[in-house]
């Protein structure tokens, strides 16, 4: 009996497996509710999005597995809510953390296309370029960031604020975040100037460095100007404009009397100008100070984080 069953018994019509596979494919494909598939995936990956928020708040360490899951989460979210403006920004951030800088740049570019008036996106893309040594692009991006109307950025935040109803339970967190970020926009402005200057300095475009740094020092929005004044002096010195250099190094020391490098440069400028005694005096003072540690690596970790949010997909699913 069982031997009979064991013998392959051919069908007449469906005689190739591909036909069977095709039937299964069509059956499954036609019966699947794609919206629910997306919701299930989002629900499954939601914890990773929450984790990223904890990471941003410095409450959790970097974890590659969870970051990759978060990438899947936001990629899926893009499919589910294509009108949502934040996914590309977040994806850019996630890929940056995953050290996939090319992809990070791609997503930030997309984000900029969607939201061209947001300072943070240009800034973040500038960071990606700077990190990868693309000084020219970095300089351009930081310049663009600085050219964005601050009010437009504010509007953008307000826009985000309006869509928070997707997760009504998280309203407080969202509001809190908005307040914090508004305060930080001012600081970001300074950082953007610093980076744009550093980018052109790397390109040895001292004229641009000088122009931008000098302009920044006159900008009332910039609160910490020592580094920028120093860079203006350094660019002037490199362009052999000794008097201007002298002026800016002095300015730098007015902003920060303990700026070691400014003393060193001042010493060099004065020496060049034949004032060796004075030069020696400045160098001597400089030697008593510690170098100003402009930790670019630390600055490269600073981002304009996309606000954390999550869709209440569970409830959407139950209504779906």
């Amino acid at each position, binding site marked *: *009996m*069982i*031997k*009979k*069953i*064991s013998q*392959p*018994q*051919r*069908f007449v019509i*469906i*005689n*190739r*497996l*591909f*036909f*069977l*596979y095709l039937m*299964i494919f069509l*059956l*499954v494909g036609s*019966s*699947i*509710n794609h919206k*629910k*598939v997306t919701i*299930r*995936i989002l*629900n*499954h*990956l939601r914890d990773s999005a929450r984790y990223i928020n904890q990471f941003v708040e410095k409450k959790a360490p970097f974890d*590659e*597995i969870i970051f*990759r899951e978060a990438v*899947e989460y936001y990629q899926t979210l893009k499919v589910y809510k294509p009108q949502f403006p934040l996914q590309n920004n977040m994806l850019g951030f996630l890929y940056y953390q995953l050290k996939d800088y090319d992809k990070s740049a791609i997503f930030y570019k997309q984000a900029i296309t969607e939201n061209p008036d947001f300072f943070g996106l240009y800034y973040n893309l500038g960071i990606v370029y700077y990190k990868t040594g693309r000084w020219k692009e970095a300089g351009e991006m930081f310049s663009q960031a600085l050219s964005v109307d601050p009010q437009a950025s504010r509007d953008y935040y307000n826009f985000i604020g309006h869509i928070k109803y997707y997760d009504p339970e998280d309203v407080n967190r969202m509001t809190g975040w908005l307040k914090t970020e508004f305060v930080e926009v001012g600081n970001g402005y300074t950082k953007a100037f610093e980076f744009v200057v550093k980018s052109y300095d790397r390109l040895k475009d001292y004229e641009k460095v000088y122009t931008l740094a000098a302009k920044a020092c006159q900008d009332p929005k910039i609160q910490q100007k020592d580094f920028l004044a120093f860079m203006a002096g350094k660019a002037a010195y490199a362009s052999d404009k000794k008097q201007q250099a002298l002026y800016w190094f002095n300015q730098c020391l007015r902003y920060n009397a303990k700026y070691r490098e400014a003393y060193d440069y001042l010493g060099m400028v004065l020496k060049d100008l034949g004032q060796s005694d004075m030069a020696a005096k400045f160098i001597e003072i400089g030697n008593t100070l510690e170098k100003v540690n402009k930790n670019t690596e630390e600055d490269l970790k600073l981002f304009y984080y996309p606000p954390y949010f999550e869709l209440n997909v569970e409830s959407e*699913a*139950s209504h779906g």
Partner: protein
Amino acid sequence: MNHKKSIKILVPILLALAFGLWVYVFRGFLLGQKPLSADGESYLYWGKFYFDNMIKGVYPLWYPFSEWGKSIEYILRFLGDLNPFLVIPFSLYKMGLPYAPVYLAYAAAYYFLGILGFFFLAQKYFKNFCWSLLSTLLLLFSSLGLNVFFNYCEIVLFVPTVWFFYFLYSFCEDFKKENFLGIVFCLMIVSITYIPFYFLATFLTFLFFFSILYTHQLKELSLKFVQFFKSHKALSLVSLVALFLSMVPGLIWVIEGACKEIICTYRQTGTAFAHAGAVGLRPINIGGIVGPITIERLFSGLNLRVNQLSYFFFSVFIYLILLISLWNRTHKRAVLFLSICLVMFLIAITDVVGLHQFLYEHLIIFKFMRNIYYLLSLSLPFLALFMAEAVKDFFDAVPESAQGKFKLSVFVVFVHAGFAGILYHLGGILPTSYITILLSGIFFLFSIWNLKFKSSMLFPMILFILAILQPLEVFFYYSKNTPKSGFQGYSNKHVQIMAFSYRRPKIGETLHQPPNTFPENDGFGSGDGKFLGAIWTKTLRDQVDHAILGEYVQYKFILYDHVETIKDQTIHWNKVSENFQKNTDRAFVSEKITGNLAQLKGDIKPGESPIVIKQNGENFQVLNFDVNSITVRTRFNKPKFLVYNDSYLKQWEAKVNGKPVKLYRANVAFKGVYLPAGEQVVRIQYKPTWLHYFYWFLMAFVALFFIYFLIILLKSLMTPRHD
């Protein structure tokens, strides 16, 4: 030595090597150096609780250390508590070996037993060692094995299921007694596992498609079954009784669950079906495989996956087989296997298609199955058989002409290159996936042009590599990715005592209990989202302020001088709360007060207060305690009402001085007994004594049945065959 004999020796060696590699790659878990998943740890914990009680001669039915006491028969079914194989780890543990390694070694060995059963099934089916080996390796290194550490109850289901199909197949071949006993024994084991409905759903699906595809043969088989029953009446009757007995624990659970006394909040979300084990559609949908599994996740980022792998994972080789088999001829067996897998898959993806909802609404067994993806796990053996057969069919259909071979070779190259290209496009692919593709391409091409290769010793070796290479790397990462930080290994290696404590911790308090005792919690820990326990316990928790309740419930024995009836429908929660807060000398009884208890009705006199027992004393001593019962001696000069702050269920009973007395539901959720004046010995026990004995009897009965079956089987194996 001829070729067949060589293969016969080589294949078991390869199989043993595969088991060895499996153990090696998961050694971190098996040695207790890696933490199990949360569910995996839960099985480990309950297994220890079970063993520690059994060592003391107590079959545990009640868990007094959490939720102020709850029934746990249902939880022990996860382990297959009456399974005779548990004697092995139990004995080793009793001999003094540390618990966790014993448990884990047993769990892995039990999985191997299932895999061995599958190998025998495949061997019966293919009658060829190579194809049996291939299908077995595919299954061994699939997601199924991860459940040893992730969701052990799937293994508990898988092993008897696969052996059931082995004996069923064998029985259909020869209608021998030993195979019939094998079927019955497997069904008994399935019946005493957690929700045998998963097995039932799998078997019914198999039967459904088998009856469609093999209508004529099914008729013949049915007639032969009837003939067998007629010619083996005594055996059939005994088997029927055995089957019925093994179903008794399940039936008890079904009956008790319908009494609306037990609640499992998470499972029951959204279900109108009144049963403690019933599950709402929403929790089922959340547990579907879509989410953890996507098409991309089958191939990409496998070095980053952890528990998602346990939903579905097979070697990358099966996808190549699927592609290679495109031109294979279809036959009924392929349709049968694929149909079973397809149906299981469609059910497991829950609300993404409508099949599960339809079954949920029309078949009662689906109302009890929450982790619906178990069905997918149970369909994996069918998938493994299909895959091996697809390779076999491919080689069987290799044309003899050079032109035909050339065309087939082009097809093979195209399929492999195309698949590699797709994987490359996806990104995040493990190197072994590409190596497997390359090796598979060479293997198929070489075999097409050299058909004798199939008969060489190298053939099973190559199949071996193709089947396990990529899974080995995936499992290596699975092990590596399992977080280790902070994990110190599993403590409580040896027997812990079920000690009684007059006090349980208040909310958030940690009581310093001796390390060799089972810890007790404040009863609030599980949260409302996943509460499993007595419904009145849950109600009380919901209605009374936790701070007040936590203070009240910290002491387990309170003696009152007065009682008052409260009706369940009209409980004044403020009054109950005030009673707890002010420690008023009045207990609430949830039924009409009659008989002797009526003496305790009446007003509270000034200065009266209840006696809270904090330790053994002259008037109150705990004489005996185990998880199912407690015996106390009391000596008071006037009648009292004793409240034991441990959850009440109707199945609890009380005796005073050996005589059964009424056990009341007191203070909404707890147990209360009337105590006459003078010395009394009170025993409160969960479920009648005969039932405790019945479980012991059932355990012995299943073991004896197994021994009998083994004797018959061995006799048969030793009898020379004439065919």
